[in-house]
């Protein structure tokens, strides 16, 4: 800055900011500070390389207000933390955690403590900066090169020219009288105040450069490219894995798909042949099935140990058991497929409809669609049925799209029906079924009533178990519905054991009978009038 020549147009003399006095040690400084203060000057300051005891009283520096900022900020932190936690945990979204009350103070204390400290610490730092007028990029005292020693081995006293009693000559005299090594006036920095244009240019260039990555990302996100994506982070993008039908070099046979390990039992494969578990007689169903041609299946299993060239497997080349859980894929080779327009319909013969469903399926379909519903609901119901039927394993479908599965339903219970079983069925029914179907099975459970109250349109009311078609259903059919669900009703195979399901069926039968009782049902010797009185509660 010393080489700089003042600009010719500058006519105003450089402004004086104040005077500095330089001392050798802190005792002189303390003494000088006292004398200057006694002389009445108040806008004074000292610059020392280390904290000097007593300098605050010598300079007459008042206690800082900083602690009050910290205290108030700390209390604000406490309040904010408590309100935040109470509001979020107890008012806006009441949420029980660990079985504690919504407002459980012990759990709130750690966060409260942290926020108190955080608020107080931030406020202390920023209030300190604010009270000190920081950040400040320059101070006129720095124009004096000697001042650098204030952070090394010299002590400076400062009298500000804004002091109300300030008089340059008197201040100089006073400071000289204190035994200062040097007394100097601090003048306005005569270096140019203009920021060099190169700095602006550099800042602009920096801003532009920082925009480039963002621009590239934006461009790449909004455009298509024939090239693969940039892999900044590889994550798990590159692995020696292949998609289902791709070749691989990892396995000797060159195939990606691996056959099941010998002895694997797939889900649903276990015990499907027991009518007790199924609700229908699979042998009877199988007897009604047409002989399946070798081309009726697209996918085949490779048996273990079955040597197989890596050549593509010919569709339908080998025998395989039916996959019970999955709908058989549509078979293009089946010429007699009646529902080819309905790809999800199983490849079955319409003539196979031999089992117990006497009524035409279409009629049942319409009754299933509950005439009193809006048409939209009816459509939804039909769709749901169709979806539900997909799950029917090897269903002997009638061929009608979305029709009821038509199995060789069990007509009688495959277990002994005892009073105990019925009691168990009642328990299970009231626990699992009654919420929708109602305690008496009229489809007026709490959920159903609530849904009807809300009247949101898309609710499909639960079926009344006393509808004629339900009453007529064989027990196997009821059991099948419990097992696999129906429409909106979820399957209960996972929740209830077969015995429990049969127990529920037994109890449904009891319910149905109870609502359609005839006088012959009354055991001899029972006073009907008396029991009617006591049963009038319903």
């Amino acid at each position, binding site marked *: 800055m010393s080489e700089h020549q003042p600009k010719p147009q500058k006519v105003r003399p450089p402004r004086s900011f104040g005077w500095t006095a330089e001392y050798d040690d802190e005792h002189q400084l303390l003494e000088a500070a006292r004398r200057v203060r006694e002389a009445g000057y108040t806008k004074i300051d000292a610059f020392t390389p280390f904290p000097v005891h007593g300098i605050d009283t010598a300079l007459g520096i008042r*206690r800082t207000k900083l602690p009050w900022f910290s205290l108030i900020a700390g209390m604000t932190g406490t309040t904010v933390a408590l309100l935040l936690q109470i509001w979020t945990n107890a008012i806006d979204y009441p949420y029980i955690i660990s079985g504690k009350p919504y407002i459980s103070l012990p759990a709130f204390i750690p966060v409260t403590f942290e926020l108190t400290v955080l608020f107080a610490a931030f406020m202390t730092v920023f209030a300190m900066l604010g009270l000190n007028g920081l950040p400040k990029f320059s101070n006129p005292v720095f124009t004096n090169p000697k001042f650098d020693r204030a952070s090394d081995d010299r002590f400076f006293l400062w009298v500000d020219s804004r002091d109300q009693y300030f008089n340059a000559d008197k201040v100089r005299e006073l400071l000289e009288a204190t035994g200062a090594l040097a007394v100097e006036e601090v003048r306005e920095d005569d270096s140019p105040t203009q920021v060099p244009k190169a700095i602006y240019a550099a800042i602009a260039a920096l801003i532009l450069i920082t925009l480039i990555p963002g621009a590239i990302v934006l461009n790449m996100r909004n455009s298509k490219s024939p090239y693969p994506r940039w892999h900044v982070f590889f994550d798990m993008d590159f692995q020696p894995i292949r998609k289902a039908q791709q070749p691989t070099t990892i396995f000797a046979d060159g195939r990606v798909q691996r056959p099941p390990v010998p002895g694997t039992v797939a889900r649903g494969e276990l015990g499907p042949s027991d009518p007790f578990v199924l609700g229908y007689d699979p042998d009877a169903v199988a007897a009604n099935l047409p002989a399946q041609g070798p081309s009726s299946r697209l996918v085949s299993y490779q048996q273990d140990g079955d040597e197989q060239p890596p050549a593509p497997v010919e569709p339908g080349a080998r025998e395989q058991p039916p996959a019970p859980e999955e709908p058989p894929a549509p078979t293009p080779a089946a010429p007699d497929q009646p529902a080819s327009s309905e790809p999800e319909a199983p490849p079955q013969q319409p003539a196979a409809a031999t089992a117990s469903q006497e009524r035409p399926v279409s009629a049942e379909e319409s009754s299933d669609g509950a005439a009193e519903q809006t048409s939209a609901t009816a459509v939804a119901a039909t769709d749901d049925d169709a979806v539900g039927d997909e799950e029917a394993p090897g269903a002997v479908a009638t061929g009608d799209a979305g029709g009821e599965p038509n199995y060789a339903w069990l007509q009688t219970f495959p277990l002994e029906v005892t009073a105990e079983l019925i009691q168990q069925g009642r328990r299970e029914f009231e626990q699992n079924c009654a919420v929708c179907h109602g305690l008496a099975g009229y489809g007026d459970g709490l959920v159903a009533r609530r849904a009807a109250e809300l009247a949101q349109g898309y609710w499909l009311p639960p079926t009344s178990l006393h509808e004629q078609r339900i009453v007529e259903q064989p027990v196997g059919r009821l059991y099948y519905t419990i097992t696999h669900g129906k429409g909106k009703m979820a399957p209960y195979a996972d929740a209830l054991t077969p015995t429990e399901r049969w127990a529920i069926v037994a109890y449904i039968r009891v319910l149905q009978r109870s609502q359609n009782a005839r006088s012959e049902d009354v055991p001899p010797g029972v006073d009907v009038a008396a029991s009617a009185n006591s049963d009038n509660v319903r």
Partner: protein
Amino acid sequence: MTTNSMVSEQTLPGTWRNKAPMLLAVGFICVLLSLGLCYFVGGDANRAIGFSVFFRSYLANFMFCLTICLGALFFVMIQHVARAGWSATVRRLAELLANMIPWWLVLFVPILAMVWFTDSPALYPWNAGSGNVSPLVEEKLRYLNPFWFTIRVLAYFTVWVVCAKWFLAQSRRQDETGDATITLRMQKWAGPGIIFSALAVNFGAFDIMMSTDPEWFSTIYGVYVFAAGMLGFFATMIVLVSLLKRSDRLQREVNTEHVHDLAKFQFGFIVFWAYIAFSQLLLYWYGNIPEETAWYHDRWGNGWQYVGLLLIVGHFALPFLATMSRASRRNQVWLAGWSGFILLMHWVDMMFLLLPTEDIHFSALLLIGHLVGWLGMVLLFSGLFMYRTGETPLVALNDPWTPAALSYEVGP
């Protein structure tokens, strides 16, 4: 003494020391009176409870004093390990307080005697012996039995007594010789001393205090007792300095700056105590496991819950706010008053740790009995302090840090 000392030799006021016999006599009577009062706590229906109440009350009052002296011991060693200069003029008082520890071993003898010569579960339920304790405690009897208990207690006291006497003896020798290398030696041994004393305090708290409820356990218990003791010590120091200054002692040697620093320590340990106490509570409250909450269960009913709430307010919140500002810490009267209050709360804290059980309920008679016992113990403490301190100077005379301490200034 040498003549180059910067501080004048001062001893305890003669009027204080003249009262020592009376203090001891009244203290002893008060302890006996406490035994009488506690005996009736259970009423005619439950005489056994009275015995239990007295021993628990005695132990609580005993720990009130012992933790203060242990805090003093730690303070001395911390000053050396940190090479603190400011504390050179107050350190001797802490050394004298720590020098009281041998007397606490003497006052522990009644408890040891009870453990040795009876199988009373009045204080330590494990003392009933095998077959008379719950299955949980049965498993712990290999550790909690009279023989090993005595061995361990003696080991803890050995560590404390050796540290306390050694640091006082070294400091006293420096009074005579002015040898600065003694300071270096003390600084060298303060580190190991802290480690051993801390372990002794931790396990001592487990054995002497926590085993009054042998089914319960808390790993932070020792730290809790340490925090309580440190706080009690700083409060004692501030009160003691204040009383000595009123008796025209330590006028120049201990000034507002030193008291201010003691107050800062005290403030720090107010928070530390609360932090530790809450850490223990939070984990047990959240886990909510019966074997861990049983201890709190005893303390959250039968009137003890109000004592617990009083601790939150009186042991933490009030002194925390009252001694927070700089001005409050430099006001001797205000500060000494709050330090006295903290000592009262330290007593309540010890009561809360040791007295409540399933059978011992809070009652006015219990409080009075316990309070009289406390009075007795504090009088014994004071009287013994007079005897034991005797003519020992209250300020280290030739400590090389003395100039630093005398010119010490906290800063704005």
